[in-house]
């Protein structure tokens, strides 16, 4: 973070979004879904030996963080804003933040710039430790998915699949509720109370967070048995066609072209980044607006072919990409 801030002339960084603040500070808090972040709770000043965190969970701060850098969370927004202004007062250069709020703008009293490009730069390349952490969570997600697949019998409600995921993912926080789509044109997302029937073909996807890093896993199953070999083989061909293009400098359009040529169908995303959460780039068949791929990006490929959807993660390198997990 400090290196990228220096390169971009940013003297202070204010972060409210939980996964970004955790990335930049190393601090862990009780995870709360749907708290995209109000006021910043992590402040990084250029050259400072540590981030400053505001938290209700001081035991979640890294052991190397000085005690003075760990402050109790403030519920009084006025006080919180005054403290933030005090912390960034020494900054002479730009002040960047990940979330806009009129209160913050007024309290800081100086122009704020968007932290998104800075964060995107800092989050790639992933370090070896980060790649290892992502692989651990990918493995946990795949194990949990196998639990859901086993539970996907005729007459079972979608809730039974979600229960199976919970049972086989102790120590992980669900990124979201988990998706079950009935395969069709288009895919139809099922509710927890919907019941699976024999002969249904459903696509499952779930996401987990473990030790701050995220993993996702998706696959397609035929409820009550059924042969998906041909569909799986078609999907695998598309997967490989996209993976071949996942090299330094490839654009979203390159990936989209390869996928279309191999027979991918327009249905949600084609690929997305992975790290402390689901991350940019977000690539769909329209190509999207993603920057050219950089080595050290973890990419989850999520192509859809007629009747089949699954996921597989890879690491973009200087040469050929490296798979981070086996084919589902």
């Amino acid at each position, binding site marked *: 973070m400090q290196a990228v801030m220096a390169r971009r002339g940013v003297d202070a960084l204010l972060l*409210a979004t*939980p*996964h*970004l603040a955790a990335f930049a500070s190393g601090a*862990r*808090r*009780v995870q*709360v*879904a*749907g*708290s*995209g*972040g*109000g006021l910043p709770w992590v402040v990084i000043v250029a050259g400072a030996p540590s981030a400053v965190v505001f938290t*209700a*969970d*001081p*035991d*979640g*701060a890294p052991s190397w963080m000085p005690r003075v850098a760990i402050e*109790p969370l403030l*519920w*009084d927004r006025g006080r919180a804003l005054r403290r933030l202004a005090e912390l960034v007062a020494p900054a002479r250069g730009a002040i960047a933040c*990940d*979330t*806009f*709020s*009129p209160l913050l*703008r007024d309290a800081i009293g100086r122009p*704020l710039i*968007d*932290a*998104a490009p800075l964060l995107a730069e800092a989050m790639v390349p992933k370090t070896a430790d980060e790649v290892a952490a992502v692989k651990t969570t990918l493995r946990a997600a795949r194990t949990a998915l196998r639990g859901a697949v086993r539970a996907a019998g005729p007459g079972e*409600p979608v*809730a*039974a699949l*979600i*229960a199976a995921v*919970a*049972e086989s*993912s*102790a*120590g992980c*926080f*669900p*990124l*979201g*509720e988990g998706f079950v789509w009935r395969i069709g044109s288009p895919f139809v*997302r099922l*509710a*927890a109370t919907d019941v699976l029937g024999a002969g249904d073909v459903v696509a499952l996807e779930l*996401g987990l*967070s473990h030790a701050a890093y995220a993993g996702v896993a998706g696959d397609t199953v035929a409820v009550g048995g059924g042969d998906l070999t041909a569909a799986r083989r078609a999907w695998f061909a598309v997967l490989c066609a996209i993976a071949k293009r996942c090299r330094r400098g490839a654009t979203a359009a390159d990936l989209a072209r390869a996928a279309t040529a191999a027979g991918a169908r327009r249905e949600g995303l084609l690929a*997305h980044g992975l790290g*402390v*959460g*689901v*991350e940019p780039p*977000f690539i769909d068949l329209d190509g*999207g607006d993603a920057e050219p791929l950089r080595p050290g990006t973890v990419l989850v490929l999520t192509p859809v072919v007629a009747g089949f959807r699954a996921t597989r993660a890879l690491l973009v390198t200087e040469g050929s990409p490296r798979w981070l997990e086996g084919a589902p």
Partner: protein
Amino acid sequence: MSPDPSPLRAGRTARLHAAMEAAGHDALVLTSAAAIRYATGAVVRHGESSLEAAWPFASVVTADRVHVLGVEPEGVPPEVEHLPWTRHAVVSTLAEVLRGARTIGVERLPTAVGLELERAFRMEPAEPVLGAARAVKTVEEIALLRAAQRASEAGIAEVLPAIVPGIREVDLGARFLAAMARRDVTACHVEPIFCVLPREAREAPWTFAGGLPYRELPGERVLAAGDQVMIDTGMLHAGYLADFGCTWVCGAEPGRADRTLRARWQAILDAVLDACRPGTTAADLRAAALAANGPGRPAPWPRPLYLAHGIGLGGVEPPFVGTDLGLAAETRAVLVPGMVLVIEPYAWEEGLGGYRAEQTIVITDDGFAPLSAPPP
């Protein structure tokens, strides 16, 4: 994934419009799942912060129209217009929908979007308007909060027998999520907390100055017989939060220390409940807890948390009791019928350990009614 039913939507929309008018806001731009659901009845994709960033959503509320952006169409009520959230075009889409408005209340926005909108509109925080509308619950909302609470209580009852020596804290969280899913409650809002409380201050050296030793980050700690396991969970049922909390002794009957702490917790809770009626203030609840706690003891709740907080759609919400907001703010926070409070004192003493549990209530015309059962 169907949108909220019509009577629920109508009651909330009326409250929100009144609050907007009182604040002089021509429009609101809302970006939190809870606020969008409150204002529109639309159900957004539930998830943590990176999912929200990956699939952003918003709603725009004016006096006569409601729009949502980035919400799956099957979750949107018929009277709400839905538009895509397109990364390149989101500012122009918002500006178009906001045309004619001058003062707008906004929740958090991506910085780039906020900086662009600022050129065209006078922007104020939306939170005071949302807070004013959401503080008092409609009859339909109270019924949903009660149902959410019941489901959580049943889920917890299923997990309690598993609190035995040898199991890890995180295993209990997983069992709880599975038990809730089997009751069709699948939206995990707060990481389920199953944490052994410290019996002595030296077991929690990180505690903030002046606070009671406490922990709430579950880990791989293996439970031993007699451990005081603090439970705190937050699941969303139809968007409404069930905040369940209690303390359970691992693999044993509660001992003398456990019973002493629970009795103290009960005395503090009873004193606070005595003050729960229309017209009293958050400051009165704080004073009641401190008086029941006895002189010379630190405030009976963890710092920097609270003695009590409101709940509704989504997470904790005002009124807060016992935070750094302080006495002046608490004196202004007057209880009125329809407010829903979670009261959660923490009794802790060196050598004895801790006991924390939660009681959810709704303020009624002549006092309060419980929405949660007494802790097990």
